[in-house]
């Protein structure tokens, strides 16, 4: 519930509070801007929590993975299952968040339905990254680094709370190479009944990060379990 709750509070606080001071941003109200940004953020969080804390609990604390590996199952079966499950948590975050947006009347566009497949893809990216963290973690403490030094700074440079055009040019380039800006870019127009102008690029970049990230996570788990 943290995965949705925290971004939702950001949205309410910033949207209603800061929204009064900020005029339109890129052709939309600040509320709409921050709602779409924090929706993407909650999708990122859903998979990140599950792939780090919950997967680590099953692997290291409860030893559920060991139990499964004693059955006719392989490590790749288990990691694949964790990956898809964590990605599905992003869908759950997105459905909850979108439901709230509809109830509050912030957006009621039919394109909101397309957030679901987008959430699955974005979830796959951040689930894979979370599993990389899980594969190298010695304890839970490690995960707060990825949140504080990874996810939060990424949110700052990816247009979640303010437009990327406000960033120095170099930082914008960096951000375009990273997955969260494409997640925001893909989700934002869907709240206004539109499709991202860069939809093909967004999907390609996210898919590349998802597949590459999963490959790296798998290799790291294999190394961890070889000893």
């Amino acid at each position, binding site marked *: 519930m943290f995965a949705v709750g925290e971004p939702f509070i950001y949205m309410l606080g910033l949207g209603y509070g800061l929204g009064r001071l900020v005029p339109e941003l890129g052709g939309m109200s600040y509320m709409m801007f921050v709602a779409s940004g924090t929706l993407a953020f909650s999708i990122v969080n859903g998979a990140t929590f599950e792939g780090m804390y919950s997967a680590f609990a099953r692997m290291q604390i*409860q*030893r559920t993975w*060991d*139990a499964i590996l*004693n*059955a*006719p*199952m392989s490590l790749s079966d288990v990691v694949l299952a964790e990956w898809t499950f964590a990605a599905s948590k992003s869908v759950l975050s997105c459905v909850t968040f979108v439901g709230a947006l509809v109830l509050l009347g912030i957006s009621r566009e039919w394109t909101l339905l397309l957030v679901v497949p987008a959430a699955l893809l974005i979830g796959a990216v951040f689930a894979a990254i979370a599993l990389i963290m899980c594969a190298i973690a010695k304890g839970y403490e490690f995960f707060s680094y990825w949140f504080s030094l990874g996810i939060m700074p990424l949110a700052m440079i990816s247009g979640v709370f303010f437009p990327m055009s406000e960033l120095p040019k170099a930082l914008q380039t960096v951000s375009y190479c990273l997955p969260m800006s494409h997640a925001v870019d893909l989700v934002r127009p869907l709240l206004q009944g539109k499709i991202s102008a860069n939809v093909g690029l967004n999907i390609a970049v996210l898919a590349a990060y998802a597949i590459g990230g999963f490959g790296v996570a798998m290799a790291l788990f294999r190394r961890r379990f*070889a000893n």
Partner: protein
Amino acid sequence: MSSVLRFSDVRKSFGKGDAKREVVRGLSLAVEGGQCFGFLGPNGAGKTTSLRMALGQTEPDSGLIELLGYTMPADARRAREKVGVVPQMDNLDPDFTVEENLIVYSRYFGMSDSVAKSKVPALLEFAGLSGREKSNIAELSGGMKRRLTIARALVNDPAFIVLDEPTTGLDPQARHLIWDRLKALRAKGKTLLLTTHFMDEAERLCDHLAVIDNGVLIAQGSPRELIEKTIEPDVVEVYGDNVAALKDRVSAFATRVEVSGETLFAYTTTPKPLTDVLAQFQGVRVLHRPANLEDVFIKLTGRELRD
């Protein structure tokens, strides 16, 4: 029936360069069908690594491992369909009830929920957990968790069951109940492989024992054979403040004498003269007993702590 599990000159090292450590160093052994096979050794002897290799979870550097006729780890998946594992550390799923633990675990063997569900009553009865279907794992005692873990290892009706220290941490009542269940499994014709640090447990349950140390097999045979061929039949234990001082006086009457802390162990084939001599000493207590598997284990692997 041929061997259920066979190791032929198996080797395994961990680490690289200077940190490289050979944990299993040319291990060969065979577990015959229908046996309860005890796999003994001090901590760090290579037992866990060997078990992991037997189940295809760790790849040997060299040598051949066959489990139920399958080459490991290449055919691990097919072999594990017919194997049950009771791990050393309880790893029941705390998010599920007793019944759900069995059903969910059955899915990993490709069983449908309806088939799995139909097996639950018999499994719980075997584990002495009938009526506990809806209990949460946190409500179970240590002994109940172990029994449920054993029941979980039986969902696929395995021919071969591996138990890694199944009674560690349990009270005597719970241990006796586990022993009783293991004997019942053996009576059904299952092959059991058991690791334990309790020598009375190994002596009581196992038909055949293999003792490994430093990654090699150092002795094997039935508990009786091992005691007879390894050690003197009588042991006299002497307790007292300064038993070390008695060592020289006692040596003439015993084959071997060892002092460990405030206890002196004298091993002999003719106990009478020894106990007569000891009767003259004041301030010591004497216990005369037949040699047991623990004496064998200590003789084979030494008295020093391993970790």
